[in-house]
């Protein structure tokens, strides 16, 4: 099911992207309507609910805490076209597992991720954007309860993100909106989604 959802989303992203430059510059986008702006850059910060699609073999999904607060930071270059390019990072907790293993041992395991995505975004209609992003991710695992507390980290090299965003201009420089995001981390085969409230500023 997860793969079908990812495939459908990526198909949508790609098919739209393939036609992205057919038309010429389209004025009127809140993010590309630069007016008196000095640059074509935007900084966005988001925070909101994230959900992990638990798929562990060893821990039943009902025993996995899947819902957390996640944050995202995005820096975009927005020329006067439908397409824009940028970098995105953030911080998300993927899961937390609290288990009683034996009378002797209980255990808490948490995994966090700091992704770094290269974002390719397209304005579909006014104020509404879709983006896809491949990238890297640094994953942290923290274990307490069995022996000493241990923090371990690893890099995940094959990760993907798909995002749908809505931005409403609240002034000439500032925008507010929301983002729905689907993220896949290849190293651990983890899929998560997030819904963030986003605040953006034109630089």
């Amino acid at each position, binding site marked *: 099911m997860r*793969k079908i959802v*990812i*495939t459908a989303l*990526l*198909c949508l992203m*790609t*098919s739209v992207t*393939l*036609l992205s430059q057919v038309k010429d510059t389209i004025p009127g986008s809140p993010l590309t309507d630069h007016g008196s702006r000095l640059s074509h850059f935007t900084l966005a910060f988001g925070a909101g609910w994230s959900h992990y699609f638990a*798929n*562990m*073999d*060893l*821990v039943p999904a009902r025993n996995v805490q899947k819902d957390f607060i996640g944050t995202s930071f995005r820096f975009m270059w927005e020329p006067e076209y439908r397409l824009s390019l940028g970098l995105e990072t953030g911080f998300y907790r993927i*899961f937390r*597992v609290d*288990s009683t*293993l*034996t009378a002797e*041992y209980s*255990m808490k*395991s948490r*995994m966090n991720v700091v992704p770094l995505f290269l974002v390719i975004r397209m304005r579909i209609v006014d104020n509404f954007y879709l983006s896809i992003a491949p990238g890297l991710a640094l*994953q942290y*695992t923290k*274990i307490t309860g*069995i*022996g*000493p507390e*241990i*923090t*371990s*980290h*690893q890099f995940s090299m*094959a990760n993907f993100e798909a995002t749908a965003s809505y931005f409403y201009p609240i002034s000439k420089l500032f925008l507010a909106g929301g983002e729905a995001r689907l993220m896949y981390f*290849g*190293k*651990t*085969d983890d899929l998560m989604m997030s819904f963030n409230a986003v605040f953006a500023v034109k630089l």
Partner: protein
Amino acid sequence: MKKYLFALLCLALLMAGCNKSKEVTVPSVGPNSILNETYPLSNPSRMMMDGIYTVNSGNDLFGDQVVIKWSRLKMTIMCSNGRYFVLEAGQLDSVVILQGYWRYCYNDNTGAVAAYIGREEGGADIVNASGRSQGIIIRGGYGLSGNVGNEPLQFTYLRPISPAVLNKHFSILAHRSGGRTSDHLPVSENSIAMINFTEGLGSTGIEIDVQLTADGIPVLYHDADLNIRLTQKGPLSGPIKDFTYAQLFYLVRLIHGERLPTLREALLFTVDSTLLTDVYLDMKEKVPTMSAVIPIQKEMLQRARDKGRELNIYIGLPSADAITDFMNQPGYKDIPSLCELTTDDVQTVNSHVWAPRWTEGTQNDLVALMHSQGRIAWTWTLDDVDWIQQYISDGHFDGILTNYPFIVGYYHYMREN
């Protein structure tokens, strides 16, 4: 429209390519197997069946000749082309019943096998352990595509395995204790279950990968990190050296559900429960590990001697760092070791085994040099049928490390001397 189709095709390939593994079910004749009704064969009876057989039916798939060799629990039929059978046997009223499966090592082709040796076609001789192998005919059927089937199968005894070959100590070493996870075997690599399974593939020895946990316990694991290729998905991921053994014990399962074994558990099982004769400890760590591994090696060698077992356990020296670590141990020249570097390094540390990479060639002059010094030479990791055939016919190695022991077994046991 073409753009859409192309994008869709690319994405489908991308998503399909991310599948971590595919299960290959071991074919079975079902729960009502006639083997449940049979009596076990004695060792002399089993050994009578060892030999070279002509393939009368089934040679399209299995070649013109096969080697049959019994191990501790199973009968292995080794073919020239990478196909093999793993069978169990029993006898009922002087008829030998054989059941199991065949498999092709280079893809997932497999099928169930059911066969028998009739009373007048060698069955009575086998059951009575008469010593007369000539005349044994194995008849039966095999399935295709994983199913039980009725493709005809017939093997006729041709000759025994040459006594010169049997008396020669040639090691058929199974990589990662039997084969890689990517070979879709029914048990996980570097596990106790694989050590128990590997003799059925024709192995006489194993290579196992050794790493240290955060609390200094040597465990068997190949990769540097816990990952979904080798382990079931759980709450732990990251470099294996970051975690204690207790954490690995409770929170990690190998891909087929086994626990991560300690080196001690693995060697204990090898000594007590198998007939394997060689163990090659492939030291994966870059940090010093010898002081943790050598006492276990020493204890297990002593245990094998106490049991009258012929068993060699060699510590692998794959790098200059490992050699330095090894030479810091007291009495290192007397510790059985295997050096993967040059013959000069072998002499420096007094390794018993020289083990060059197979791509360096047969190097018969250097192998002869090692032999002249009372050492032996193995090569690794050789998986291609043609190369295996060439190394066995032209080379003078004393053992080959492979993911496919049955191929090495076929070409080794087919030799006349």
